[in-house]
């Protein structure tokens, strides 16, 4: 029995020492700074990307620089990789919210900012950052990170999803590619719904298969990449309060936009099932893809002739294109609001923007850098930048955003699978969204 008790005590001691080891390292660093006499301010940052990821590396580098610029400040960046819904990073954040142990700074999907603000978890950065600092970011970033009159989250870069097209197939099918004086397909030359349909039918006849590739399944992709098709027709998914879907999701404009998408599937323009690498393998002439596809096509399909075209629009003059990414925010749990806000700005500053453009080809999120951007100064990439700067439409600011995202996915997937009429799919979606919204009213 004595042996068992001894073993038990030793185990506790070993586990205890092991648990302390990580914080002990940080503590040693703190002690060095504490020796200078002043209080050491510890700031914790949780990010969703791995330390080896360009974004992860960037956060580490900026944190280090921030420490060097401030005496008696320690910044610890913890990389908790997001592995899926309810796991990894999100799981850790949920647990920290429950136990009231959120770090000073977190990263979050910009579209979830409203629900975090609704729960009073985030710090309004504009109260601590000067106007010049906030103004240096692209309007699209400030809009996406704001809820009401306050700014809660920032990022050094943004994404805008492009629509790819194959000029060779277009020419072979006899389609005239719109171009400005410099031969570029600019934003103001975007096709309307009708022009898109007309040309897609020509492509279909030439190719003998669905000429346009879209991802039809229910995922966050629908909100990111396909909701702009609805927004460009002045359609909305949810009202200003972020809770009412009745009157918005079933408005005339939204239904009209969804019917346009229905036509794409019904007329055999888009395949109801995702076709892997359809564009790269020239099985599709137009493709709605992520911006990372540019790198894939450049490296893996060097012989493919590709370019970018603007998103089709519904109502004249209402172009809309995807944007958004993970943002950085300060939490209300921080003991040092001013310093933490400054850290958020530092983690997303111009140096970060430059680094992320170089490392990952992301659009720099600071106005000052746009003119000097090497990657985004020339077409076709410039079109992505123009889309972001000129035609962004902020996604719904809603405490029930995950539900709104899901119901849009349900609708598009239902359309693709011919499950029901657009009207009935929308009514089902409203019922689901209203049920969730009722908990917040």
């Amino acid at each position, binding site marked *: 029995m004595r042996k068992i008790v001894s073993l038990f005590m030793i185990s506790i001691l070993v586990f205890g020492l092991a648990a302390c080891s990580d914080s002990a390292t940080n503590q040693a660093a703190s002690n060095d700074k504490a020796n200078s006499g002043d209080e050491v301010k510890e700031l914790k940052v949780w990010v969703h990307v791995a330390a080896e990821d360009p974004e992860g590396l960037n956060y580490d580098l900026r944190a280090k620089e921030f420490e060097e610029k401030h005496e008696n400040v320690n910044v610890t960046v913890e990389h908790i990789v997001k592995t899926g*819904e*309810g796991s990894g990073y*999100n*799981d850790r954040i*949920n647990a920290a*919210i*429950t136990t*009231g142990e959120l770090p000073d700074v977190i990263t979050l999907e910009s579209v979830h900012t409203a*629900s*975090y603000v*609704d*729960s009073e*978890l985030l710090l309004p950065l504009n109260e601590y950052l000067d106007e010049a600092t906030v103004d240096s970011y692209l309007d699209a970033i400030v809009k996406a990170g704001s809820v009401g009159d306050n700014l809660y989250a920032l990022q050094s870069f943004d994404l805008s999803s492009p629509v790819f097209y194959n000029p060779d197939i277009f020419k072979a099918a006899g389609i005239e590619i719109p171009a400005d004086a410099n031969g570029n397909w600019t934003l103001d030359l975007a096709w309307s719904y009708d022009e898109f349909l007309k040309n897609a039918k020509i492509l279909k006849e030439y190719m003998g298969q669905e000429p346009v590739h879209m991802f039809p*399944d*229910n*995922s966050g992709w629908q909100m990111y990449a396909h909701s702009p098709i609805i927004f460009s027709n002045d359609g909305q998914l949810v009202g200003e309060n972020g809770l009412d879907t009745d009157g918005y999701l079933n408005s005339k404009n939204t239904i009209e936009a969804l019917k346009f998408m229905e036509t794409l599937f019904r007329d055999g323009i888009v395949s109801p*099932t*995702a*076709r*892997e690498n359809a564009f790269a393998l020239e099985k599709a002439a137009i493709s709605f893809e992520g911006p990372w596809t540019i790198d894939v096509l450049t490296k893996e399909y060097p012989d493919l002739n590709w370019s970018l075209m603007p998103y089709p629009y519904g109502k004249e003059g209402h172009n809309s294109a995807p944007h958004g990414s993970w943002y950085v925010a300060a939490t209300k749990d921080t003991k040092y609001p001013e310093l933490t806000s400054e850290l958020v700005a530092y983690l997303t500053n111009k140096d970060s923007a430059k680094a992320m453009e170089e490392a990952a080809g992301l659009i720099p999120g600071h106005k000052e850098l746009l003119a000097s951007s090497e990657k985004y100064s020339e077409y076709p990439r410039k079109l992505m930048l123009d889309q972001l700067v000129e035609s962004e439409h902020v996604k719904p600011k809603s405490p*029930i955003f*995950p*539900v709104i995202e*899901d119901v849009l996915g*349900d609708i598009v*997937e*239902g359309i693709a*699978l011919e*499950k029901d009429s657009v009207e009935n799919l929308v009514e089902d979606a409203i*019922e*689901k969204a209203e*049920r*969730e919204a009722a*908990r917040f009213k």
Partner: protein
Amino acid sequence: MNKIRRINKNGSLGFFLSSKFLFLLPAFILIGMFVIYPLILAVGYSFTDYYLLKPDNISFVGLDNYFGIIEDKYAKQSFFNSTKYVIYIVPLQVALSLFLAILIAKKSKLNTFFRTAFFSPYILSIIVVSLLWKNILDPELGIVNVFLAELGFSKQEFFGNPDLALQTISFIILWQGISFQMLIIMAALQEIPSSLYEAADIEGANAWQKFRHITVPSIKDQLVFVLIVVTTGTFKIIIEPLVLTNGGPQGSTSSILLYMFEQGTRYRQIGYSSAITVVFALILIIIAFVQRKLVKEE
């Protein structure tokens, strides 16, 4: 030691000081921490509007969450899907496990190979199995569809077709789970005295009669165990639909647990999610009780 024995005889305190209890203590602590305590919490939360992002703002809502489940067609769809999984998987898994166990119960080199081969899927993680089958059944590049195309059949969307996705996932679960049940039945088969079969041979019994009157009654307890484990296990399916289809298309593969998980983690409605958990736990208890009762009465 003598002192403990004396207390044991004279009062219940003795049990807690006995070595039997001390050996069980770690298990009691773990069960208490990871089963009893969460269950009590779930029951408690199921009567509240606990929203994950507002942990300090919980109110009592009575039976609202439970009424919510009745009105929630997506919850009902998930319950219905879970029942479908059980209908597709349980009878087949029990029958095939029994069949395979009988086939390879006898000791021989060939059977040793088959035992290893049949058991190998079970040692793979569910996620690995799911991803493996996702590749095998890929609509464009999967070997099954390539083979179908070679034979002149049209390619199938095994996971993208709402009429096929649930059956496909059921098949994968069946494929992986069958070997473990087979092993349990095989162990039971090996415990049947060979004298029973020898006596039956002398009496002139045929294979079916031996199976019906000797094999099945001898392994009845193990079969009941397998039946209960497979039924409750099938009701608890979550990882396969999560990895393969995320409950889609159109909720056609979502299970009760997956729906509960989605409500809790994605929508952050812990109160509602807890109510689903409680209903689910009750269903499992009732099923296990009924199965046990029916077999006992028989």
